[in-house]
């Protein structure tokens, strides 16, 4: 997986023309506090992702034990709740190697639906009797996939992890939040009409009530994917605890490198990942399911909490799922010291982005889902999404200025004694 920070670094460096503001002498102590708060917030966010994932795990176990409308709805509600803290952690991507190497396991998208479970023929163009529509793990104890035949007689955590190895890639197309989402909601076959995935709870019913076959195996997959995700989140939470690798890497390293990581992560998530890949592309293609929470139609929340999370990271203040706050010295303090107007600008822009995202969330909750908003010809809906993209782009320019203001640019241009002007270019 390539971090978005690649291009972001160059964007952030393009603000090189701005002068470096002098920082007061006690700034060094602030930097340590900032990094510690950054790690504390991460620990709390991932901790909340873990605790809500455990609640999801309990709800999934209940669904499997007593399949029914109520337990299905409860499991879905638990999934939606589990997304709230996780999405806020995405500001820790694109710079923290520990996070970047792991992220694909829990939040990879798109999902290889046809590999996991039955899929609707309406998306394909082949004949109805094509057996390849049923060649999925849930329905087949043995399946040829990748370069080999996979023994799927028991679906457990090990099997799912081994799917990840086929094709020699770290990121997964069959585990994590979206695999669980797919198993709870099924495909959204409504296109740009209203409606989300409508998997019946009877897909988990036992005996003759089972619909779409292999309900026991489907349940196995759901359980294995959920258990695996809990394990993965527990691991990440530990990395940000005292002594954890992610925290240690930051607090024991060069403070400026750590500060650069903070801003690069925010910039990359804002511009490249969220505004660009996740939002702009969907709008460009008008593809209704070009949206991350495509089965549950929850994408508006995923985007919203990404944005809330970035604000929390910048301010060094996170409100936990239980309402309590984890607060400390945010990077805002350092920016305010160096250039108060710039800090004020960032805070204002973050507020503006949160507001634009809130408007999109509100629209999704009252009028039309995200996948309808991005539909072709829906000028009003498109505009609401575009407003968020514009706000994200705008806040990225401010982040860029902050990198310069704090003197965080990695300078790599080597001087050359023998050249009159090393920066000269032919034209």
């Amino acid at each position: 997986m390539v971090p978005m920070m690649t291009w972001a670094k160059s964007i952030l460096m393009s603000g090189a023309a701005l002068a470096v503001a002098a920082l007061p002498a006690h700034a060094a102590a602030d930097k340590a506090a900032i990094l510690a708060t950054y790690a504390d917030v991460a620990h709390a966010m991932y901790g909340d992702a873990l605790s809500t994932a455990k609640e999801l795990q309990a709800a999934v176990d209940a669904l499997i034990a007593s399949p029914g409308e109520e337990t299905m709805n409860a499991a879905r509600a638990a999934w939606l709740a589990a997304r709230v803290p996780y999405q806020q952690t995405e500001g820790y991507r694109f710079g923290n190697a520990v996070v970047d190497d792991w992220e694909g396991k829990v939040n990879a998208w798109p999902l290889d639906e046809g590999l996991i479970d039955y899929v609707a023929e309406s998306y394909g163009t082949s004949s109805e009797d094509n057996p390849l529509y049923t060649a999925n793990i849930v329905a087949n104890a043995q399946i040829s996939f990748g370069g080999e035949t996979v023994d799927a007689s028991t679906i457990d955590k090990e099997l799912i992890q081994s799917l990840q190895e086929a094709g020699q890639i770290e990121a997964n197309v069959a585990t994590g939040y979206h695999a669980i989402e797919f198993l709870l909601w099924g495909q959204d076959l409504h296109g740009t009409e209203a409606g989300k995935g409508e998997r019946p709870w009877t897909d988990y019913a036992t005996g003759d009530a089972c619909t779409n076959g292999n309900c026991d195996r489907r349940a196995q997959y759901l359980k294995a994917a959920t258990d695996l995700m809990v394990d993965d989140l527990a691991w990440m939470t530990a990395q940000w605890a005292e002594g954890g690798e992610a925290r240690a890497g930051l607090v024991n390293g060069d403070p400026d490198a750590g500060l650069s990581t903070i801003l690069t992560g925010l910039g990359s998530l804002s511009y490249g990942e969220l505004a660009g890949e996740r939002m702009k592309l969907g709008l460009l293609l008008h593809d209704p399911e070009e949206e991350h929470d495509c089965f549950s139609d929850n994408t508006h929340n995923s985007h919203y909490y990404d944005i809330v999370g970035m604000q929390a990271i910048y301010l060094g203040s996170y409100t936990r799922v239980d309402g309590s706050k984890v607060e400390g010295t945010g990077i805002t303090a350092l920016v305010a010291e160096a250039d108060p107007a710039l800090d004020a600008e960032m805070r204002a822009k973050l507020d503006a982005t949160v507001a634009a995202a809130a408007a999109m969330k509100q629209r999704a909750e009252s009028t039309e889902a995200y996948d309808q908003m991005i539909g072709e010809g829906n000028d009003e809906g498109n505009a609401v999404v575009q407003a968020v993209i514009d706000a994200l782009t705008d806040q990225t320019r401010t982040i860029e200025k902050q990198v310069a203001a704090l003197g965080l640019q990695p300078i790599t241009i080597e001087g050359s004694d023998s050249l009159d002007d090393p920066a000269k270019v032919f034209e």
Partner: protein
Amino acid sequence: MTERHYRVVATLAAAAILLAAPLSALATGDAERIAAVTRPATDFTRAEDYELNPGGKTTSFAAADADAFSQPSANMSFGRRADFTVGNGIFRKLWVSAPSSTQSSDGLGPLWNARACQNCHLKDGRGRVPEPGEDAVSLFLRLSVPPSTDAEREALATHRIGVVPEPTYGSQLQTFSIQGHLAEGRMAIAYEDLPVTLADGTVVTLRKPTYAVTDLNYGPMRPDVMLSPRIAPPMIGVGLLEAIPEEAILAHADPDDADGDGISGRPNRVWDVAKNMPALGRFGWKAGEPDVAQQTAHAFAGDIGLSTPLFPASWGDCMEAQAACRDAPDGADPEAGVEVPPAMFDLVVFYSRNLAVPARRRADDPQVLAGKQLFYESQCIACHVPKFVTARKTHGPEQAFQLIWPYTDLLLHDMGEGLADGRPEGQASGREWRTPPLWGIGLTDVVSGQTSYLHDGRARNLLEAILWHGGEAEAAKRKVMIMTKDQRDALLAFLGSL
């Protein structure tokens, strides 16, 4: 960039070639300035003007770390960077099997070599050789057979096709498949040690690979099948290479070695599908592709099994004999009719064109300069041509009229028996390879975490790569073999600074 714009630009370019007007797109006085600035150095006491910017104004001055190959052209506006990042997203996207509700991401395979562009072009750099027992991803086998009919011979002669595909397995061995399908087979690699003794007594052990296909799932291959191992090349600077005027490349060609220097670079001629005519080949280990768009479209088709506007067959490389593959559900977008709709395809091409070349390091260092002198005076630059100036009219403004330092002539050269694959491709014989660019090569380890050089990654370091040179490069290689250790170190320091 829209398809229409692409076609307009393509038409202009085609007109330029047809009119055979050399330097027609240049301004008055350009020719002299270009000749002067691209003349190879003769003064090795200091770095040359502009030498720190191997990509001209597109050169990236980001940190020389693992992301060094993933930066956008430095002269790209903030607004266009949005397109670059979206293109990056598509480049990294993991494609999934059809049918899937994520219509813009499905259509993988059914047979494939990789699930994402990034999985072979690791960190936008080159691929790697698999560990023993590991399935290769970024290294695969190209397949073809000699022509056996007049129609095939005619098609080859008129450049319509570059190779005759193996009748069942196509022109590439796909070692992975989606659920319910069988992969074509597996690639087996065996290595043999080949010690080479240098003049000063140092022994360098090269590893000589032999390739075979095993576990074929669609019946036997033709006994006269030709295999050619190909590792993913690095992506940096391809937009710049695309922008070198054809005349400037042809000026270095000397197919009959008329000047008697032992070097006989030849251009490859390949079919340009968009323009429906033969064109100069520039990309690929044997220069089999004319431009970035066609290279990209062929890669989507052969490596990932995805259809694009240029190659709309959703089954990728599958032949008629592979009925299950051909009958499988496809992921074609209902409106565009292809799995990678034009908007996505154009973004990937734009992204690829703008992957920036990183800045030179240590161009001034005395050891590096000494190495540069050895490189130039050993005539390595006869093929690894140091400098070009790109055209004024290019697909994107970033690449226009830049002085670039790719260290390649983009021509085909006979590299000797040791490197020969025995598989012709277009005008390239079974012993010829396109000179690869050397820019960025010193950062291979930092970016990729390992070093696998040459067309199949057999060379584990640059000295091994040099010692594999033969054929037209034999004389230059021999000069390296008789160097002192200090001289070799200097030469390697120079290469490491690129």
